[in-house]
């Protein structure tokens, strides 16, 4: 319990967040102004209705004076006000809601753009689920806030103000008494916020724990069942379920004590005040029954908006927490590297040079130390080394996923930093360890968003990597849909499709992060054949996990703890009998001498 309430945010922080959120309305100020005007008009026509009835009672009904035309006018005016209020309210409500939706749309796109710019390191640290929830769920909570703050709070406050103004117009003394309502209602709101806020927060937290537990149990059910842990998990789930029930119940109790039932008591107390005021005054002077009637009507209307605001207070706090999280992402300074200067060099030949490159992710430990090598146009440079030796960092730097701290990377003599993003992405093709396919069909996965790649080029690319055969055998060939993460295809087939995707771009430079995943030997052969074809005529930088696939490389670099410790071709390295030789023997032995 104490743990759970710890990260319940202080109000002072949420005020800055609120201000920042409200600034999103600035570009829409004309619409906001218009909506507010309509709201004011609607409130005016609304609170004026009881006054007409008061006029009717005091001027005509009590004195029994009934001029037909005037009464018809009065009645007509009343109905007119009723209709006008409703029509104005329709527009006002709609305008506010559309406004809120527009603002959230902008915030979402802004957040998406920001995420596109963030350095990849951010994605390594932040789980996918958390990020998705920032862009969708948190913005949704903020949307609710805009709907409540903009629509409800502004509206309710306006209506309350309107009612008070009307009361003052009718009887200033009594209205002044009724002003006492404001601190009372304010105090209730304050207490309610204080008491229910933490409980509400705990409830939400327990619900998310409950859902997480359920989700995980469903995913891990085979494990749970084969290990006979059903009774234990049922018990654990039961405990979480019960703690959630208790939190919900506490919520109900607090709402029962402080919301409607309490408001109703306050209403009756004020009603007593109004009756006392009119009653005692009637002993000494003539009172207008119409005024009494109007006051009673206003009072009964006063509490609807108050109840509305009270009920929405918790969502408001939730939204502030969400907004805070969203802003933390928007303020994240860790941007990915971008083009520097206006030179726009082009990659024509594909000569790659690492010139004394050192690199560190955290600023403390270097994962690459003084790495220098050159891949001449058309050559294949293979990088081998143990896990954590810095192989992947070389790819990360070459792809400009991270910026080079020390040293330089040159492509065709120009510094990597000076290339435009587009040039880099078009001319350097990356093939990742794990083929990632998007939801869509096969053709769209090969083409991606590049409209200039036509159906013929898609098929050429597939044919080039020898994926054409199996694709044509699928029920809808290139139009075959691919399920979530390409679940309907084998790993090898997905790998081939991702190759075709790279080939469709026809890059000058190929960067291969060799697959470690186990595919059966025949697919493996198809993949190796495709890779060989792809490398032909392109400068290739390949990270190899199996030495067997890189014997024909022009240059092999052996990395050890971020340093190049050996370099040369396969034969040279073997004859040196150094680290490469050892790795080679180990891999050989691994598949022969066990047992």
């Amino acid at each position: 319990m104490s743990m759970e309430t710890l990260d319940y945010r202080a109000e002072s922080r949420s005020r800055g967040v609120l201000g920042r959120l409200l600034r999103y309305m600035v570009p829409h100020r004309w619409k906001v102004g218009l909506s507010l005007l309509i709201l004011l008009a609607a409130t005016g026509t609304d609170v004026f209705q009881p006054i007409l009835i008061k006029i009717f009672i005091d001027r005509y009904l009590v004195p029994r004076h009934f001029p037909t035309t005037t009464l018809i006018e009065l009645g007509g005016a009343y109905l007119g006000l009723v209709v006008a209020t409703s029509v104005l309210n329709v527009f006002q409500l709609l305008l506010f809601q559309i406004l809120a939706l527009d603002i959230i749309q902008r915030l979402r796109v802004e957040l998406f753009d920001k995420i596109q710019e963030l350095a990849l390191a951010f994605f390594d640290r932040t789980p996918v689920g958390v990020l998705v929830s920032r862009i969708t769920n948190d913005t949704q909570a903020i949307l609710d806030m805009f709907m409540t703050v903009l629509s409800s709070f502004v509206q309710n406050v306006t209506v309350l103000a309107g009612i008070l103004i009307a009361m003052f117009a009718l009887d200033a003394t009594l209205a002044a008494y009724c002003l006492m309502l404001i601190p009372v209602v304010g105090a209730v709101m304050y207490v309610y916020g204080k008491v229910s806020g933490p409980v509400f927060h705990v409830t939400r937290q327990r619900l998310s724990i409950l859902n997480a537990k359920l989700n995980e149990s469903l995913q891990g059910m085979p494990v749970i069942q084969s290990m006979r842990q059903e009774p234990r998990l049922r018990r654990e789930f039961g405990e979480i379920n019960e703690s959630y029930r208790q939190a919900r119940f506490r919520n109900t109790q607090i709402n029962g004590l402080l919301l409607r039932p309490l408001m109703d008591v306050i209403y009756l107390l004020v009603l007593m005040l109004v009756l006392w005021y009119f009653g005692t005054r009637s002993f000494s002077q003539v009172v207008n029954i119409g005024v009494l009637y109007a006051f009673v009507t206003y009072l009964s209307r006063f509490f609807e908006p108050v109840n509305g605001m009270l009920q929405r207070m918790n969502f408001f706090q939730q939204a502030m927490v969400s907004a805070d999280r969203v802003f933390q992402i928007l303020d994240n300074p860790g941007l990915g590297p971008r083009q520097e200067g206006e030179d726009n060099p082009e990659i024509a030949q594909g000569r790659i040079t690492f010139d004394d490159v050192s690199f560190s992710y955290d600023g403390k430990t270097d994962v690459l130390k003084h790495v220098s090598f050159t891949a001449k146009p058309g050559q294949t440079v293979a990088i081998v080394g143990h896990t954590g030796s810095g192989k992947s960092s070389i790819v990360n730097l070459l792809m400009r996923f991270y910026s080079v701290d020390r040293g330089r990377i040159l492509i065709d003599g120009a510094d990597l930093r000076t290339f435009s993003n587009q040039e880099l992405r078009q001319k350097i093709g990356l093939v990742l360890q794990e083929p990632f396919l998007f939801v869509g069909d096969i053709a769209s996965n090969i083409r991606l968003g590049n409209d200039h790649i036509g159906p013929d080029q898609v098929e050429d690319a597939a044919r080039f990597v020898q994926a054409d055969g199996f694709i044509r055998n699928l029920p809808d060939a290139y139009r075959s849909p691919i399920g979530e993460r390409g679940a309907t295809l084998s790993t090898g087939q997905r790998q081939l499709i991702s190759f075709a995707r790279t080939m469709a771009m026809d890059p000058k430079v190929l960067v291969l992060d060799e697959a470690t995943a186990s595919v059966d030997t025949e697919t493996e052969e198809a993949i190796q054949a495709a890779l060989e074809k792809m490398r032909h005529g392109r400068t290739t930088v390949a990270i190899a996990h199996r030495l067997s696939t890189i014997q024909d490389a022009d240059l092999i670099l052996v990395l050890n703890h971020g340093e190049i410790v050996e370099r040369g071709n396969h034969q040279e390295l073997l004859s040196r009998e150094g680290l490469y030789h050892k790795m080679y023997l180990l891999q050989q032995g691994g598949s022969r001498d066990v047992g």
Partner: protein
Amino acid sequence: MRVFHDLMWFFRDHRKKYFGGIVLLILVALLALIPPQVVGIIVNQVQIKTLTTTHLVYGLIVILVTALMSYGLRYWWRVLLFGGAIQLGTELRTRLYHHFTRMSPEFYHQQRIGDLMAHATNDISAIQETAGDGVLTLVDSITTGVVVIATMAITISWKLTVVSLLPLPLMAYAVSRFGKALHTRFSLAQAAFSDINDRVQEHISGVRVVRSFGQEGWERKNFVTLSQDVVAKNVAVARIDSLFDPTISIIIGLSYFLSIAVGAVFVVHHAINLGQLTTFTLYLGQLIWPMLAFGFFFNIVERGSASYDRVQKLLSIAPTVKNHPDALAIVPNGSVHYRIREFRYPDTTGSPALRNIDLIVRQGETLGIVGRTGSGKTTLLRLLFREFDIQEGDIAIGGVSIYLMTLDSLRQCLAYAPQDDFLFSTSIAQNIAFASVGATDQEIINVAKIAEVDQDIQNFPDGYDTIVGERGVTLSGGQKQRISIARALLQEAEILVLDDTLSAVDARTEAAILSELKQNRQGRTTLIATHRLSAVEHADQIIVLEDGKIVEQGTHRALLDREGRYWDMYQRQQLESLVEAGGVSS
């Protein structure tokens, strides 16, 4: 309405709560009649100048007592009715969870986890709403409605009552109509929202691909389109939503107008007095909520019963794998004997997954299962766990058919490290001890050492207490596999099953784990399915599966001597290294 009948078991179980809640609601409705009467009397006395201080004080005290009493009663019924509804939600969730733990893999093949989650969250909250707000709106609209209307008709004027109530049924109709339209449009908006959710999820998972192919612009375009769709769908909701309140206030305004206009005529003709007219309009105000509630009621019940049907349907699915009525609760022990004529996955056509398998693995032996993807390796192992039941044939352990023992005792003799190693988001130690909750730290460390993962774990910031998964560290595939092997080892089961659980482990570690296993599991049976032949070379017996049939069987040596498929596979895996070996010597 049928949903109330369906929920009767719950109402009956909690009859005190519900009966009490309904009685309290009725009392509150009766109490609420009092203040308007007092107001009417005082207004009338003011007008005809008969009001005295005693009268006034007396009237105010009545209001005060009413106020305090209804405060208590209002709180009380809320706790009873809503507390009951929350209880129902809790009970249903427990039921569903218990049901889920009994379901066989077939169920999880047919249902998507997202859908099951939706049933356990959205559907249950809709049912909960039915038992809470549904009961409230029904009881309240009937009791308050009837009581107030009766009081208006009896104590003031039935004619005036009829006239002024004319517009109100329109309101219940409008509420129900708008409610339905809102619900439909809201579902569409939800669907659009879930689309954008999926899209973002995909985008972030594939961020490296997006960046390396320079597809940011395209992704943005897609995202903007989808988020505009979300806006459009929500605007459609807003269109109805903003009609809702204003429509109601028109109807209410009309009703007030009628009661004042016609009431004035009555006052003039001395049928009622001015105080009664005031009371009447106050009562009219009290009728707004019951009318709204009546409209809400239909929507709540409609949603609730649809949800209840869905949950019931889910609960009525019987597990496909069950204990035999006379199943023995004896933990089996001994050699494993497979005799399968044919096995097909349920609801599949085409060739069977396994055919004509006759295989004996003697106690203490290690069986290697090799073959390409889809050849039936995993199926053969899953059948042993009774994840699916064989249609023709039998599997026996120690001479007893696995179908004649309880699932629990069968699974007690089996430990499984599955292909898709699933870890729970708790600490590493708790994951390893998942099936053996009482295990000591030393036992956990021992198995981690055998699985060659101890060193990796020690390097994590919190060692064995490191949390894995979304909220903790991300493990590499190889680490996950080794933890899942440690987990299986800790079970100390008679039969250990490794389903390609070494695929992401490097060759040296694989060799180390295998030799540790050999020592550690002396006298106990091990089944290993694998792609890499190196993992089964030492096995007592190796079978080669192809299209669900055993095509070769024997020891590593014997199979090599046969120069068949196994030999082919071995050659292919060795080919490159042999060529390279030649390169060295030359």
